């Protein structure tokens, strides 16, 4: 039977399956031979671009270890104060709030000491600010910007009797409320096809149009309970996820019940089982790879509210990295305007170096897969509309708890009543989400009985803003 080694196997699985891409050390020069260790996940480092660096720098060996998203960040958190750190570590935006906390940020190299301040002006200001630690140090260099648009199927829109031109489609939904109404109309006209793939994605889309999420930008206190943007985002996603009830169960939704990135999702995309997807720039490449047969059937319209953002990462160098200088050479090259342009052309990741948005190579870029939509212009205007959002310590856990609550509404599995709300209502899902977040996030630091000096230390911490576990 499965032995006790299971847990360890689980954690190691991601590591073991990760690609350890060993660089070819051609023409090894003994003096400047450097091996850079890189921790990553997903598609942060695109192989063709990294290979370009390898060719130009035969004396540098780049070893990229790909892990599961959560595993990589947890491993990094506990490795940082030790010597077992990589030279370069990728950090996802959902985790940036945690790594920006002063105590942790102090464990990263301040990139300004390596010359980051000289190139700061090249990058989108809000993305640059996301990489600044709360101790004032610049700890991250921003990779791509997601931006946000709606990719839709022109053939299915036609079937529903909707306009298919992107300007007219954009005019259909000036607000999110209108977006839901359009979704309902679509589903009445084309039964059996979902208007969008997963209504849960609306939550992040609406939330990221605000300026604050779960934590107050000034006091850094948790405000997920009181911030009206959070409630509004939840309500919109809940309304889209459950348009009407029958027999005390959710019986209609403007989305399918399919989770993004599941095998069903790819199948549904190929079969045309949904008509629209909320699409950050990186999503376009996903659609091309998952459903190559749908070429030419898509087009791209703007999201309600105009701008939006999803995803994006930071490249960091831990303070105890063995080759900080070489690591900086690599990441500053990798994210320089020329390479970001190349990455955009090859892999569709949208550049953060915004000064080239006005260059013809981006401004006039059209994608034939999406009916020659002006992808470059759409995503640059979406990215320019964004303001920085304060990222807090436990964003990832809070995100996933709200995601669970929204999924319960759509699936009809909100079996618990909560507060004054009966089971199966969106009120109960919201109420349970708040309880779950409080259960997980709000326990330590300020509440439990401790010796007096600890109380002093904690209040001290509070004012010095490293207290991140607040009720």
């Amino acid at each position, binding site marked *: 039977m*499965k032995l006790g080694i299971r847990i360890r196997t689980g954690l190691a699985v991601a590591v073991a399956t990760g690609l350890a891409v060993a660089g070819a050390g051609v023409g090894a020069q003994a003096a400047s031979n450097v091996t850079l260790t890189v921790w990553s996940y997903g598609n942060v480092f695109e192989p063709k671009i990294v290979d370009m660096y390898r060719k130009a720098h035969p004396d540098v060996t780049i070893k990229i270890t790909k892990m599961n998203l959560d595993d990589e960040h947890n491993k990094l958190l506990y490795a940082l*104060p030790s010597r077992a750190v990589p030279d370069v570590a990728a950090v996802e935006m959902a985790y940036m709030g945690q790594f920006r906390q002063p105590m942790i940020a102090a464990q990263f190299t301040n990139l300004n000491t390596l010359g980051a301040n000289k190139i700061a002006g090249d990058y989108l200001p809000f993305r640059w600010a996301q990489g600044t630690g709360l101790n004032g140090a610049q700890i991250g260099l921003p990779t791509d910007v997601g931006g946000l648009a709606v990719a839709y199927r022109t053939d299915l829109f036609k079937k529903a009797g909707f306009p298919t031109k992107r300007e007219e489609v954009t005019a259909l939904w000036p607000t999110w409320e209108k977006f839901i109404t359009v979704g309902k109309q679509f589903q009445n006209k084309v039964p059996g096809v979902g208007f969008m793939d997963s209504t849960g994605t609306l939550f992040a889309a609406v939330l990221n149009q605000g300026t604050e999420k779960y934590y107050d930008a000034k006091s850094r206190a948790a405000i997920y309970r009181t911030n009206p943007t959070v409630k509004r985002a939840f309500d919109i996603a809940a309304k889209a996820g459950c348009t009407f009830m029958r027999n005390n169960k959710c019986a209609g939704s403007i989305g399918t019940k399919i989770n993004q990135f*599941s095998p069903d999702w790819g199948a549904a995309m190929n*079969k045309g089982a949904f008509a629209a997807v909320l699409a950050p720039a990186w999503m376009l490449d996903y659609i091309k790879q998952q459903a190559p047969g749908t070429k030419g059937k898509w087009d791209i319209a703007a999201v309600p509210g105009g701008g939006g953002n999803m995803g994006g990462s930071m490249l960091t160098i831990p303070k105890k990295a063995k080759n900080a200088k070489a690591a900086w050479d690599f990441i500053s090259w990798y994210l320089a305007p020329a390479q970001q342009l190349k990455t955009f052309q090859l892999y569709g990741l949208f550049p953060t170096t915004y000064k080239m948005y006005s260059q013809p190579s981006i401004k006039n870029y059209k994608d034939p897969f999406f009916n020659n939509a002006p992808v470059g212009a759409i995503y640059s205007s979406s990215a320019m509309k964004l303001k920085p959002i304060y990222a807090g310590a436990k964003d*990832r856990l809070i995100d996933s708890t709200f995601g669970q609550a929204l999924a319960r509404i759509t699936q009809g599995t909100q079996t618990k009543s909560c507060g004054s709300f009966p089971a199966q209502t969106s009120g109960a899902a919201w109420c349970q989400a708040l309880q779950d977040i409080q259960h997980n996030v709000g326990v330590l630091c300020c509440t439990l009985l401790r010796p007096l000096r600890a109380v002093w230390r904690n209040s001290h911490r509070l004012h010095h803003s490293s207290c991140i576990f607040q009720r």
Partner: protein
Amino acid sequence: MLFGAIPIVFTTALAFFNADFQTYYEFITNHQLSVLTNAFAGLDNFRELFKDSYFWLALRNTFSIWLISTVPQLIIAFGLASLLANARLRASTFWRTALMIPNITSVLAVAIVFQQLFGRDFGIFNVLLHYVGHKPIEWVAGTIPSHFAIATMINWRWLGYNSLIFLAAILAIPKELYESAALDGASRWQTVRYVTIPQMKNTITFMLVMGTIGGLGLFVEPLTYGGGFDGGANSQFLTMTLYLYKQAFMNQRLGYGAAIGVGITLVVMIISAINFMITRSIAGEESK
């Protein structure tokens, strides 16, 4: 022995602290013992654990998946082993090797394949059900269906391995015992009941203990099946170790995570003791 003891002692000690990564960072950067004395929490973690409805939910889920996977698995494995032990079976080495193949397949690959099979809209099981006029089963959103799907993944992976262990035990039973049973005129069932099972007492005990440890430590399958550490939107397949991972590493509550670990250990010990008594009473009386 020492290497095994250090993590156990450390984890148990950690369970008495209100340790999070701040504690860890402060301790490792300042090397001050006051960090530890400030974080000492006594029995707080255990008190909280006792009242934590998610831990009890995780316990129920783990038991449910464990039962649906272990019981049929051991019975089928025993049947398969008896078939393989048949001297008239041709190409027996081929069959034995074939049984082992699922076990050496990568867990992640298995998870992807099973996610496809159990897909709600385009998975083969629901498509087949659709043809016989049944509405789709919620393989992920439903509690029992998701337990069943995860148990299937486990069964597929471990059935062959268990069969081979049973096979080894069956082949080790002296032929004379069967001959004398035949001379005494024992029926086929009586032979199994009074010769095979008592002779395999040690193997069965071993399998049950290993099964309990593995089954109650269930982690990779629910993690990969649901695609996250939450165990589903309604925590319908949140297992105990998944909850440990969520609290200790997603939520950075190391002390509480350690307390969950101690809780899991206690549960495993209790169940193992019960198993031991059951196997002794099944096989013990005849083999005396």
